[in-house]
């Protein structure tokens, strides 16, 4: 019997989602700096121009703000678009068009604005303070936007298609360290089976503690959990996938069951998305909590560039495991003896990453 799934990298999954969507919607446009260059935005936009033509797939001037407004203008004439940015940090130039127009147009003028904005987050290998910012909570703060952060190829493909066909502006955040990560996806895409944006996924089932994570930290959490399983510590791991709108039901159900909550966030601490989840859960489910909820976020410090300064900077499975043990009040000092502190070199996702960005 033929297999229904196939192994694929996340960047190829994104490429497949774009091909699928452009075929399905004959008006859909795909543009952004580097879209048609030989590298095709980390291989995610490869062959789109060849297949769908220069009118629908094109490179652009480096004008993040205008391009965002242009995609809004296109949507008012019923043309959807996917606009890609190789780093989220450059997209900060587009806050006016995003916040004042894209997010508000439907509320003010009752006209839908179906646009998808792909933002890529860097990390390590010298990306430094302005090529590595995890600002998903900024976007989630704005009424009118949807925010998607996939952690694996299957979700990347399914959620990107769902984002494109959603009638609202969607911020789609890709972690650069996930682009070459492999995972199984369905060979055939059935659009009717894709969920509307706004569902979390339980990745691991468990009873002792609920871990809420997203993006790259889902994988770090999995490593930690796999390790702790040997000591019969079973936690539930929830991958947020979409942080706005958020699937509170799934998180609440899990916390009611476990009574413990640890939230991981790739963003910096103050007013982080982790803070939002912890405050809301504390307000709603105070009586269910056995211990104070805990967050593990990046510090309120810009990411430094130097190999020396990024040593020990990131959240690793060991940090996660330490928090879990502390929350659960496990006194056995030997448990964490064998968990790796940090891979060497620590500043790349794997040997595939040869820089520069």
């Amino acid at each position, binding site marked *: 019997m033929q297999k229904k799934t196939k192994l694929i990298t996340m960047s190829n999954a994104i490429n497949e989602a774009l091909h699928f969507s452009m075929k399905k919607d004959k008006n859909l446009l795909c543009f952004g700096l580097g879209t048609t260059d030989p590298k095709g935005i980390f291989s995610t936009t490869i062959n789109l121009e060849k297949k769908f033509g220069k*009118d629908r797939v094109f490179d652009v001037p480096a004008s993040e703000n205008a391009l965002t407004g242009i995609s809004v*203008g*296109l949507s008012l*004439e019923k043309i959807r678009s996917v606009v890609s940015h190789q780093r989220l940090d450059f997209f900060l130039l587009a806050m006016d*068009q995003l916040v004042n127009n894209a997010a508000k147009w439907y509320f*003010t003028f009752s006209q839908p604005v179906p646009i998808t904005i792909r933002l890529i987050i860097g990390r390590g290998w010298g990306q430094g303070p302005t090529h590595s910012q995890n600002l998903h909570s900024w976007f989630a703060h704005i009424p009118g936007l949807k925010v998607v952060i996939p952690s694996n190829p299957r979700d990347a493909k399914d959620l990107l298609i769902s984002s494109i066909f*959603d009638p609202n502006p969607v911020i789609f955040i890709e972690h650069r360290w996930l682009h070459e990560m492999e995972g199984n996806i369905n060979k055939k895409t059935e659009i009717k089976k894709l969920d509307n944006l706004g569902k979390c996924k339980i990745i691991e089932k468990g009873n002792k503690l609920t871990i809420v994570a997203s993006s790259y930290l889902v994988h770090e959490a999995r490593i930690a959990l796999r390790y702790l399983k040997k000591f019969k510590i079973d936690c539930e791991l929830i991958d947020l996938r979409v942080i706005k709108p958020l699937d509170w039901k799934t998180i609440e159900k899990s916390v009611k069951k476990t009574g413990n909550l640890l939230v991981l966030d790739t963003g910096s601490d103050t007013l982080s998305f982790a803070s939002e989840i912890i405050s809301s859960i504390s307000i709603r489910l105070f009586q269910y909590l056995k211990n104070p909820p805990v967050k593990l976020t990046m510090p309120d410090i810009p990411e430094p560039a130097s190999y020396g300064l990024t040593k020990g900077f990131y959240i690793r499975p060991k940090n996660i495991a330490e928090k879990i043990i502390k929350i659960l009040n496990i006194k056995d000092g030997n448990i964490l003896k064998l968990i790796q502190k940090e891979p060497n070199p620590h500043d790349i996702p794997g040997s595939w990453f040869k820089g520069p960005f």
Partner: protein
Amino acid sequence: MKKNSLISIWKNIFRIRYVEEKIAKEYYKGEMRCPTHLSIGQEAVPSVLDQFIQKTDLAVSGHRAHAHYLAKGGDLKKMLCEIFGKENGCAKGRGGSMHLIDRSVGFAGSTAIVANSIPIGVGIALAKKLKKKKDIVIIYFGDGAIEEGAFYESINFAILKKLPVFFICENNFYSVYTPLKYRQPKDRKIHKMVKGLGCPVFSTDGNDPFKIYEKISAAVKKIRSGKGPIFGEFYTYRHREHCGPNFDDNLNYRPKNDLKYWLEKDPLISLEKKIKKKKMIFLNMKNEKQKIINEVNEAFKFARKSKYPSYKITTRDIYAKKN
């Protein structure tokens, strides 16, 4: 200029003026509870442009948009209801005076942040071009927008892609109270600078309907022929304060001579003078005025009678639903 055009332009100018004067006169009552930027003194450009565009040509504008909306044919009652904050306002009472829209006549929207609707207009123009339509897009903005990055990003894109855009800069020399001399180099002519970007440009007296007519007629024809965007700079002047119903020249922020010069060039008064001088008494002006006055008064009554929205706003009002 043909007689019919002149009549129509005069009617447009008079109608906008009367609406704006009435808003100013009644603003103190506190029923129009939103920041309102009146177009008094700046009615001529959109009133003339109306002669050359159709409903399928789309226009966007900024915070001072009443004249642009009305000249494009935007529904007067819906505009007033919006300013009064009523549920049947053109933006359902969610936007106020600075957020006008009437898609039925091709007014695609006005927004409140300086230069903010320029990229939207360029996006609409790209859609028109991709769909191989002959329609053009009009983007209204002021001299302040020239100081925003969005303007340069957008016009560059429009030139690059040869988009059918008419960039209309109404230069009234002030950004709120700040004169051009504090904002741009002294010898700069905005249109000349824009020419340097590679866009065909022109400039003209924005208070003189005859001059505007001539320039716009040629520009619209050229844009419609698919040769790309054109930038027009129109010198004009607002009579009242930046925002609100009052005169504010007691604050002495505008030179007395300039003020005198521009008030003498009032587009309504000078056009009426010209009409009389040329003995072009083409119609019973008094009757026509009365018709407009009745219509406007009726619209104010309608806005006052209309209801405030009273529902609770939920996510359904913020996010569009999938079909």
